Each structure stands twice: as C-alpha cells, then as structure tokens.
C-alpha cells in the first residue's frame, strides 16, 4: 500500500495564481465606489419621487448607495490584509489581445460576412495564443469554419451574414 502522505498535485504550484498587492485590493473597493457615485449622479437626473410614489430614479439610487457602501467596506476590510485578489501577469496581455481580436471580429461580421473573419480569428488564436503549428492552425481554422457553416447556416438555419451561398 502506498503511504498516505499528502502529494502535491502535478505541477499546480507553478500555475497557482499569485495574490495581488494592496494597491490592487484598494482598487477592488474603489471601482464599486466610483461606479456607485456615477450611478447615483445619473439617478438624480431621473425622477426620484418619494417612498410612497417611487419614481424611475429611486431604485437605481438605492442600488448605487449599496455599491458605494460595499466599496467602502471592501477598502476598510482590505486594510486588514485580505488577500483574495490575483496579481496580473504577462498572460494579461494575451487576454487583452484576445478581447481586442474578438472586437475586431465582431465589427467585421456585418461588413464582410462571417466566413473570412472566423477563419482569421481561429488561425490567429491557435497560432499566436495557443502556439499551435502553422499547419495545424491553418487546417483547424478552415475545418472549424466549414463545420460551423454547415451546422449553423445549413443545419440550424441561423441567419448569419455570409458570402458563400448555395
């Protein structure tokens, strides 16, 4: 029988995200405060009304108050070292690049149809973010797009903007 000594999970340590610093913790509280303040200011622009006859602005104002209060609470608690944030790493750049690429993809959709942007997005993601080989990326990009075409446009009749028509 193997002994019951706790065994570290395979390679988890190198992957385990590092906790973020105090600045990041304060930012985590500052964002709700800021968001709440803006929402409260916009709510006053709507009609608040009264508790008896609530206007459209009353509920957003209450919610904004909750946001500000919890944000202040987060900053107060964070001051007593609560490490539940994750530090941003070099991987963050990949995340932002992916989101940017997706935004370009979405804006091309209605202009040139879905086929070309889909092939390009898949290829770029596979090659640059997932580090697949050129050949593998190219084959997968075209194959997945073809399957998506068959499934969504021919099979499910989804009205996607597309170039190739049968």
């Amino acid at each position, binding site marked *: 029988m193997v002994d019951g000594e*706790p065994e570290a999970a395979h390679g988890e340590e190198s992957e385990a995200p590092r906790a973020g610093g105090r600045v990041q913790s304060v930012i985590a509280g500052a964002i709700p405060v800021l968001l709440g303040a803006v929402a409260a200011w916009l709510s006053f622009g709507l009609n608040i009304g009264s508790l008896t006859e609530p206007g459209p602005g009353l509920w957003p104002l209450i919610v904004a108050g909750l946001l500000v209060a919890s944000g202040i609470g987060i900053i107060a608690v964070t001051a007593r070292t609560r490490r539940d944030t994750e530090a941003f790493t070099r991987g963050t750049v990949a995340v932002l690049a992916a989101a940017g690429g997706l935004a370009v993809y979405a804006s091309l959709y209605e202009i040139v149809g879905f086929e070309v942007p889909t092939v390009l997005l898949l290829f770029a993601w596979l090659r640059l973010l997932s580090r697949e080989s050129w050949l593998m990326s190219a084959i997968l990009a075209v194959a997945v797009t073809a399957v998506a075409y068959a499934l969504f446009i021919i099979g499910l009749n989804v009205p996607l903007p597309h170039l190739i028509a049968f």
Partner: protein
Amino acid sequence: MDFSSVLSGFAVAFEWQNILFCLLGVTVGMLIGVLPGLGPAATIAILLPITYNLEPTAAVIMLAGIFYGAQYGGTITSVLLKLPGEASTVVTALDGHALARQGQAGPALGIAAIASFIGGTASIILLSFIAPALAGVALAFGPAEYTVLALIGIFLVGTLGNGSIIKSAAAAAAGLLLATVGLDPLLGTPRFTFGTDQLADGIDFTIVAMGLFGVGEILYNLEHRDRPQTAVPSFGRAIPGRLHWLKSRLAILRGSVTGFILGILPGGGATMASLVAYAVEKRTAKDPSRFGKGAIEGVAGPESANNAAATSSFIPLLTLGIPANATMAVLFGALMLQGITPGPGLMTDHPDVFWGVVNSMYLGNLLLLVLSIPLIGLFVRMLKVRPGILAPITVVITMIGTYSIRNNAFDMLLVIGLGLLGYGMRKLGFEPGPFVLAFVLGSLLEASFRRSMRIFGGDVSEFVQRPVSGTLVAILVLTVVVVPLLRKVRTRQTENAEQAGVTAD
C-alpha cells in the same frame, strides 16, 4: 400531489425526442464535467441560443441534464488525476485519488457512480413530494413577499459562494444596477440607455450569462494556459466489490439527505453539500484517521450529496421562481426565453413542462449510471485534447450564438465587454455568480419593491408587520446568523483539501 399530472409527466419524459435530448444533455454534461475549466453554468449559457428553436420541455430537459451530468463527470478526473473538473468534486479527490494510487480506481469510480445515482434519484423522489406543497404556499405571495424572497436569494448566493461577503454584495449591487438599464418596468422611462436604441430594451439575460460565464471563463483560463499533460493511471473495471458496497451504503444514505437539504438552500448547491457530507462522514467514522488515505466512504458520501443537491436546487427555481445558484440563474433565463415564467404557477400552468423535466431526471440519472462506467476510458482520452484548441472553438460558437439572438453585432461587442468584466472581477476577487443572479432577479426585485411601497403608503416597517413577509424577514435574519457558521465548516474543509494539494479550477 396530483398523481395524474405526475404520470403524464412520465409520458412526456419518455417521448422519443425528449429521451434523445436527455441523452444529449447528460453526455455533454459529463464531458464538460471531465474537462477542467468550462463549468456547467458557462456551457448552458453558451448553448442558450441553440435552444431558442426547441420545444420548451426538450430544451430544459437537455440543459438540466448538462447540470447534473457535470457532477458525474467531475468525479472521473478527481479520482484518476486529482484534477477536479468541477468545484463540487474537489473533496472527492482526497480519498478517491488515494484509492486510485492503491490500484482501486475502478471500484472508487464505480461506487462514485452508484452513490451519485442513488443520491440523485432519492432527491428527485423527495422533490416530487415537497415541490407541490411549497408551490401551494407560494401562490399566496404578494409583492412584499417577493421582495423579501428575492433579497434572501441574492443574499444567500452572495454569502455561500467562495468570495468574501462584502465583495459578493458589491457584485450583486452591480448586477442589480445593470438590470435597471432599459425602460423603467412600471413607467416606461428610459434609464441609463445613453441615448442608444440598442439599450432601450435592456440587456438580454443571455448576453450577460454568455459574457460573464462563457467569454469571461475563456479569457480567465487564457492567462493560465500552460496546463501540463498528466499520465492517467489504469483503472481496470469500474465495478465495486461487495465489501466496498457494505462500507459505503450508509455513507450514501447520509450523503443523500445532507445533499438534499443543502441543495434547497439558495446558494448551497453541490459544492457546499459535498464538503459538508465529507465532514459528516469523517465525524461519524470509527477511525477518522483513514480519511485522506483511501476511505471509500469519503467518496460515497460527497458523491451522493453533490448529486442530491444538484437535483434539489431545482426546487426554489421551479416553485418560487428564485434561482438557488448561478447555474439555476441561467436555467431561469432559459425558461423565460421560452415564454415560461418559473414560479408557483409553473406546476399548474405548465404541468407538462414541470413534471416532464422532473421525471426526465430519473431517466437522466439512469443513463448516467449506465454510460459513465463504459465511457470513462473515452472521456479520459478527451482530456488529451489541448485546451488551447478548445478555447478558440468555444469562442466562435459563443459569438455565433450571440449574433443569432437579435441578428445584431452590437450584442457581440457587449458579450466581449462583459467577458472582460468577468475576467477583471475574478482577478479582483469578485465572483460572477452573485452578479448574474442579481441581474436575473433585478427587475422582479425592483417591481415588487415599488409595488409594495405603494401598497404600504411608503411605510417600510410594513414588511415586518405582515405575517408572511414578516416570517420571511425572520428567515432572512436567521440566515445572517447561520451562514457564517456554515462558512466556517467550509473554510476548514477547504483548508484540509488544500493541504492535500488539491486545487479546483
């Protein structure tokens, strides 16, 4: 209980296309349960647009199957690789993987499958008796009661999650704020639309779920994408012996009851249930030192509990219209898309949907029991597909799905923005669950609150003075006391799990 509608529910569940969608749902569920990274909430969110064209019962049968199927699948990687596919199977890895290293992976997986089956099935039976009674009570609820009920739901989901209570409150408040975008529910005044027509109808729930759960999870996993490949130990035949069964049968029974009770509590769900069941087993064992070294009860208890909880967490959704956890929030959205409002009226207005879905779970659990054993080898091989290949394919499916909702590229940008928000929230220690749940309940909460205030003439204390809403307020206050205790148990269990080197995705 109205037996004729229960029986006709069986007839619905056994229509061939519903059997097919049930099979499809549980298979997809098991698959994503095996794959670490993509959880059931994200998968259901991504598949929502595809269910538009389906019949409501078939759609919900399939989506429900994904949810409870994922509990089965998560076990497989927990036991074999000590890489839990789902948070609810983290604790199973402790003794499950210890058994696997002793060459007993097969029996461990077998017991896990049987425990899951018994837990799930027992929970469906209990659900069938309790749900009608609860719905009957809820039919008398007015706006005041719904205000308090929605508050309880949001509060519990916020506090029983993994994040800090105050951060969950902030996330929930942000979700409530996002829900106010669009036209005022009672007066029709545009709010926070910034002058665009695109936001005049508010933000579709599917967009929020797909953005925060779907794209958000993919972006988050992109940062930690170098997952090393692990060798899979051989597991032999997944059939437990007589001795294993004798040792674990009481654990299964206790786990089923624990799981059922914790599943009903909003926010409890499968993860909480599995942790508490493990604690119960360790507490009741004659020799607690065996735990962590390959005690079969440590697999049987949590596995029956997480399936029982997954099933019973349908109760608040189907009888009160209050989703108990993030996945139920997505199912709430799925029902709304089909034009069905989940709530006390569901059982009487759409008995075919209610009993069809509930009774399909018997079949789903049976399918999972039969399928999981022969398919284990296949699923383990699926793990070899690199996450780097799955991620872009999932993204493309999500984007196409988003576009298909309103044939609108603006929605795609919205999903990407919400995906970034989900990523940022996780980096800063906020959970997306309370946000999405609060978003779902936002308009109900606001409308009920404003109606109550009109009825009460602006007197907030009426919430406490009316008998039913007063009782609910008392429950709300009680949970504020009980929840921190439950959190303590959980924290201790999680620490034990972490000491053993297990981390969930």
